[in-house]
């Protein structure tokens, strides 16, 4: 198990190098001159050149990359071109909001998707199964911002049950924090919920037909022991992988959903950074998002070792 963890952590290094290279290269390829934008329309050529020199934009790209990488490894992602705030600090301010939203979306996914998948598998081929399949297909085909807008119109505007926009920190008011999170988390969580339900149903249908499930029944275990212990642990690999993959998509989705619900998280920061061509900030956000996704992927991989004892040996 220790070897599995070690191997998995080593594999992060090349992935992060590639991500850093791509993010650096992509931003360098984007048309437009940060120095010119920063200087504004009235800036003189000399002023722009001064800005450029100040930012090191004159140096060859390889030198720039290596320098940036060296700082990044030590946790210094540079400073924003506009606010002059350290990039890591700017991200740190927004990250908790977006992470809360992402985790909340995954909670919604589990709360909806897990029972739906279980129920569909247990009633395979019957109307309950078909209803859940249709619901999942529907959830997958509706964009999250549309769901968000419908939720705002129906739940907030028509019924006034929950606030339409904004965010309250947990420390300030836990109840309000929760009330503000419900709708955006549902909007973001419906797609992962549908993916989870489908994956779980498929895996469970296979597991329920296994001989060891018959053994579990023959031992006289309670229904919940049979299903939640013996079946779920064996069926969990595919759904957990799917949820892990969904985490990256939820992070991406939060960019739009934060706009719909007027939440200033990482998504809102990304939009500002891109509009202003704030290169260090864009790079920093990409790197932080990649680290987050890597962490989730490692957690998913390690769960395999727990779920399937045979993986531990390999």
């Amino acid at each position, binding site marked *: 198990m220790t070897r599995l963890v070690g191997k998995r952590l080593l594999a992060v290094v090349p992935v992060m190098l590639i991500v850093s290279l791509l993010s650096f290269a992509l931003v360098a390829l984007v048309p437009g001159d940060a120095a010119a934008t920063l200087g504004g329309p009235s800036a003189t050529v000399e002023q722009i050149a001064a800005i450029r020199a100040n930012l090191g934009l004159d140096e060859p790209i390889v030198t720039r990359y290596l320098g940036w990488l060296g700082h990044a490894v030590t946790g210094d992602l540079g400073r924003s071109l506009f606010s002059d705030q350290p990039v890591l600090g700017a991200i740190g301010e927004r990250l908790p909001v977006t992470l809360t939203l992402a985790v909340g979306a995954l909670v919604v996914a589990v709360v909806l998707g897990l029972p739906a998948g279980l129920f569909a598998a247990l009633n395979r081929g019957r109307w309950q199964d078909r209803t859940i399949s249709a619901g999942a297909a529907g959830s997958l085909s509706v964009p999250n911002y549309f769901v968000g807008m419908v939720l705002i119109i129906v739940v907030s505007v028509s019924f006034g049950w929950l606030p339409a926009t904004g965010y309250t920190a947990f420390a300030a008011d836990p109840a309000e924090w929760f009330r503000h999170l419900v709708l955006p988390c549902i909007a973001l969580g419906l797609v992962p919920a549908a993916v989870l339900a489908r994956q779980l149903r498929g895996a469970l249908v296979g597991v329920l037909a296994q*001989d*060891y499930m018959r*053994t579990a029944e023959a*031992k*006289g275990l309670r229904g919940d022991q049979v299903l939640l212990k013996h079946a779920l642990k*064996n069926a969990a690999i595919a759904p957990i992988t799917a949820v892990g993959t969904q985490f990256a998509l939820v992070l991406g989705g939060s960019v739009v959903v934060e706009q719909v619900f007027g939440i200033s998280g990482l998504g809102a920061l990304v939009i500002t950074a891109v509009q202003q061509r704030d290169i260090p900030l864009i790079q920093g956000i990409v790197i932080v998002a990649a680290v987050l996704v890597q962490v989730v992927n490692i957690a998913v991989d390690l769960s395999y070792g727990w779920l399937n*004892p045979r993986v531990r040996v390999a």
Partner: protein
Amino acid sequence: MTASPTTHDAVSDATTVRPVLEVRGLFVEIDTGDQRAAVLSDVGFSIAPGETLGLVGESGSGKTMTAKAIMGLLPRLTARVTGGEIVLDGVDLLGLSTKQLREIRGDTVAMIFQEPMTSLNPAFTVGDQIAETVRRHRGVSKKAAWARTVEVLSDVGIAAAERRSRSYPHEFSGGMRQRVMIAMALCCEPALLIADEPTTALDVTVQAQVLDLIRHMREALGMAMLFVTHDLGVIADVSDRVVVMYAGQVVEQSGVLDLFRRPAHPYTEALLNSMPGVEAGPRGTLLSIPGQPPAAGDFPVGCRFHQRCGYAAEECTTAGIPLTVVGAQETRCLLHTDLPSRPPLVDLVPEDEIVPEVLLDAEPREPR
């Protein structure tokens, strides 16, 4: 004069010892696509405490279906019991709720299966899988359940049981996994053990060991056993009495010696003839049963075996044949009623020549 009623009472007491299991008039139907087919028709037998009943038949004869019906393990969505009673220890299992049935399964009645390689859950240690059964039915502490687990694993011949209890199923061979399954079935000392082809999937050398173990454990615990197999050699080895099934019906019920000496049903006779090592028919020739066993939903009218039976007559093709008592045996065959048109069934072997142990060395084959 006064002694005679007492004697009579004693006899009737002996014969009315409450059986551990009594199956009466069991009917089961399955969904096959859009129609429903009867897979078990009027299946009945009983097992006395400490007795081993062999249940023999070809694939599709309904023997496994019968075992599953007793355990309440019929496929929930596709099979249903449409009639009969399954009385275990005086309780009709068919009248119980699923919840009540779960209390009994693994406790009063336990089952071991044909597929040792896949019957254990790969995600949990074998000790965990046995201990959870003990905890479920005995309600003891985790520690006590684990102690019982190690004890029962060691009873079934697993060396270093303490250490091996923490191993996963993939770390065991097929024969060892079947030992684990046996330990799991016996951990709560059931009154009845159902063994469904427990040695079929194992290597021949391991088969004998596992069979010995089952026999030994049965004697040690004094439990009754329903031993399901297609293998007459194994039947000769373990059973006291034998029920032969064909096309969802019981066609013969005999003591094990009677079954081999004078099978009362032509199907039993054909099964014996198709088994190497029994000196029936010309030396060295194995007789196979012509044709295929009928599929559920496609059982012929009259005797269900008549199309493949060498003795079949007109009377066999018109109406269902009742189970009739012939001496100590029961058979679903008209040969034992007065049918002048056919020769009587003969004893396969002279009474004192057959020794069931001989059958052990023979390698039986699945009749076709």
